[in-house]
């Protein structure tokens, strides 16, 4: 057959919630909020930086002229790359519509896969979680999936980071209590990378900070944005807002105020050092007006996530999203529904770095089973966005003619050649026939996931960190502990 086209264009099936003109309208509205209403900044250094950049500072209230926001949007890089923390291999490209998935960090509780009990997360539970993340192929990066609570709490962030790097080689998004915690963690990273410059060139971690809604930057947050810029390391800045509580009840209002908070963070970061890598975040959702929870599974959560992704693409900013989480208090049908909706919407909309996979109970508890299950859901969503390839080979008109009416294609070479690449085969989703399913013990998806998780915990060995690096990291953790004891 003749070649019918002179070029092949690769596009993924994509969809958008907001049109470009709606994106523009929301951007302009957010700039108006910053210029008119302003934000409070609870850090003197940050206020000085903002003043120098041209903002109007009045006590702790800072109003940001639109020209300053425009400048920050021009200077921020469109793309950030994150690496494998052992090999430095550049695996995660936060750009365009690439959607990567990983866990979240701040759940106080976790479900013990052996007892099924909901308990406080510990260094051990975080270690196990990281092992499981490391073993699951569709998870691309790590957040600790639990707050370590069985060590001195003031320096638990250092323990949390140590537990992560010992058990996974995937890129890490890390929280810290304050800039001192970050300084220790960055020091650990520089040791692992083999130097300050090496870490900056091939970062395997990004820092994480949050403003407080509405429109406030606490000292912890502002100083982290400045530290990240000075170190030249990427930072995720993510407002967590709830419609009707800390932002207006209307979706456009949520997006406007949330974007204003992100952009003011961006201005602090870029005014410190232009060109610093910055990842715009945003967990935008509703406050459930009967239980008052911050909903991780509502349709509005999905709608806002996809809208924010549209805004991020419009602004050409790398984006930190949220998916694979649930309001349900256990891993049940609801958890499946909410995870499937958020993961599919995320894959279609293309925010880049998507966290909180494995969260249940509106983000209060983590479940390793849910994580393993979502590994399959991510696989399904990725198959969907790979789309349908249409060309002579895939249209297969000759094969269809050869088989003709009433035949079958099972034993064709064409089938053999294509069935595995054209079709996604999940690992825990069950497609046995009823009788085989009965024979294999009539297990639910959760039961199969539980078996898999236990198998990983007991048998999986992550790539080890060199002994000397382990020792140096340990020394930093111990040093921080001594400081706490002294004070």
């Amino acid at each position, binding site marked *: 057959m003749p070649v019918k086209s002179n070029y092949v264009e690769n596009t993924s099936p994509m969809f958008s919630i907001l049109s470009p003109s709606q994106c523009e309208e929301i951007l302009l509205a957010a700039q108006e909020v910053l210029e008119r209403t302003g934000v409070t900044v609870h850090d003197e250094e940050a206020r000085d930086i903002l003043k120098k950049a041209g903002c109007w500072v009045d006590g702790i209230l800072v109003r940001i002229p639109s020209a300053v926001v425009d400048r920050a949007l021009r200077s921020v890089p469109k793309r950030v790359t994150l690496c494998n923390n052992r090999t430095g291999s550049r695996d995660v490209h936060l750009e365009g519509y690439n959607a990567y998935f990983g866990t979240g960090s701040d759940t106080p509780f976790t479900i013990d896969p052996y007892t099924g009990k909901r308990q406080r997360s510990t260094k051990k539970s975080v270690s196990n979680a990281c092992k499981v993340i490391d073993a699951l192929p569709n998870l691309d990066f790590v957040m600790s999936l639990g707050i370590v609570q069985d060590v001195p709490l003031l320096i638990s962030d250092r323990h949390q980071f140590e537990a992560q790097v010992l058990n996974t080689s995937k890129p890490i998004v890390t929280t810290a209590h304050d800039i001192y915690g970050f300084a220790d963690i960055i020091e650990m990273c520089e040791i692992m990378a083999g130097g300050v410059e090496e870490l900056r060139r091939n970062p395997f971690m990004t820092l994480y900070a949050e403003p407080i809604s509405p429109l406030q930057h606490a000292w912890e947050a502002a100083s982290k944005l400045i530290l990240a810029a000075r170190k030249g390391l990427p930072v995720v800045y993510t407002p967590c807002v709830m419609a009707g509580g800390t932002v207006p009840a209307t979706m456009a209002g949520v997006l406007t105020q949330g974007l204003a908070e992100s952009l003011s963070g961006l201005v602090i970061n870029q005014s410190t050092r232009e060109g610093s890598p910055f990842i715009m975040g945003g967990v935008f959702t509703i406050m459930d007006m009967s239980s008052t929870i911050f909903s991780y599974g509502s349709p509005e959560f999905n709608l806002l996530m996809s809208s924010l992704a549209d805004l991020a693409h419009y602004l050409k900013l790398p984006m930190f999203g949220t998916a694979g989480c649930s309001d349900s208090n256990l891993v049940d049908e609801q958890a499946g529904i909410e995870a499937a909706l958020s993961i599919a919407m995320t894959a279609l909309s293309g925010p880049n770095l998507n966290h909180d996979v494995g969260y249940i109970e509106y983000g209060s508890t983590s479940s390793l089973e849910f994580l393993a299950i979502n590994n399959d859901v991510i696989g399904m969503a990725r198959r969907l966005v790979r789309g349908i390839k249409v060309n002579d080979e895939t249209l297969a008109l000759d094969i269809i003619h050869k088989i003709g009416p*009433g035949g*079958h294609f*099972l*034993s064709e070479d064409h089938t*053999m050649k294509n*069935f*595995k690449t054209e079709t996604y085969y999940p690992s825990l989703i069950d497609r046995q*026939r009823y*009788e*085989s399913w009965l024979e294999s013990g009539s297990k639910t998806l959760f039961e199969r996931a539980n078996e898999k998780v236990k198998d990983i915990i007991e048998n999986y060995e992550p790539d080890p960190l060199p002994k000397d690096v382990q020792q140096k990291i340990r020394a930093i953790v111990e040093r921080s502990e001594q400081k706490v004891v002294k004070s």
Partner: protein
Amino acid sequence: MSNYYEEISQNVITGQLDRVKQLTQQAIDAGNDPVEIINQGLILGMSVVGARFKSGQMFVPEVLMSARSMTAGMDMVKPLILSEDIPSAGKVVIGTVKGDLHDIGKNLVSMMLESAGYTTINVGVDAGPEKFLQAVKEHKPNIIAMSALLTTTMLSMKDTIELLKEEGLRDKVLVIIGGAPISQDFADEIGADGFAPDAGSATDLCKKLLA
């Protein structure tokens, strides 16, 4: 001297058609017993394939690729053996019942049976009781296998069994049935000898019934 059996069996498992043909020829040229080539090489490989399919390690197109390799080997060895010495696990007449044109499942069962060493006679789709009867008379199979996708057409299975009874042939042949609307209850109700929910277990069922 190598007798090639191990290598033949390995290449049946990986579905390397050309390699199986080549090795089979070499085994023949080296003077190996043709029946042994079949039993120790070709069929042995295929039985591993069957087990792997059942445990989910292999997929249908791969099984069929292996089956194709095995058959190619068989075709080379068969002329060297007296026909009654050719190992066959049994003979099965198979078809989709009257009124039904859906035959993907039936074809799959037929291919699985062949790959497990059975000889199958495929009477096609829309096969009424007479067509099955004729095939039984002509081919004298151990088993007839009927398939249906529709709840209406499955009723025709009973008619076939009744006709076999009338003709005095019911005792001479085993009857197995399958297809989406079929269940063990239905098999019991119409007096079939067995029911299998899928192609893999149809093979197991035949093995069990003929054991």
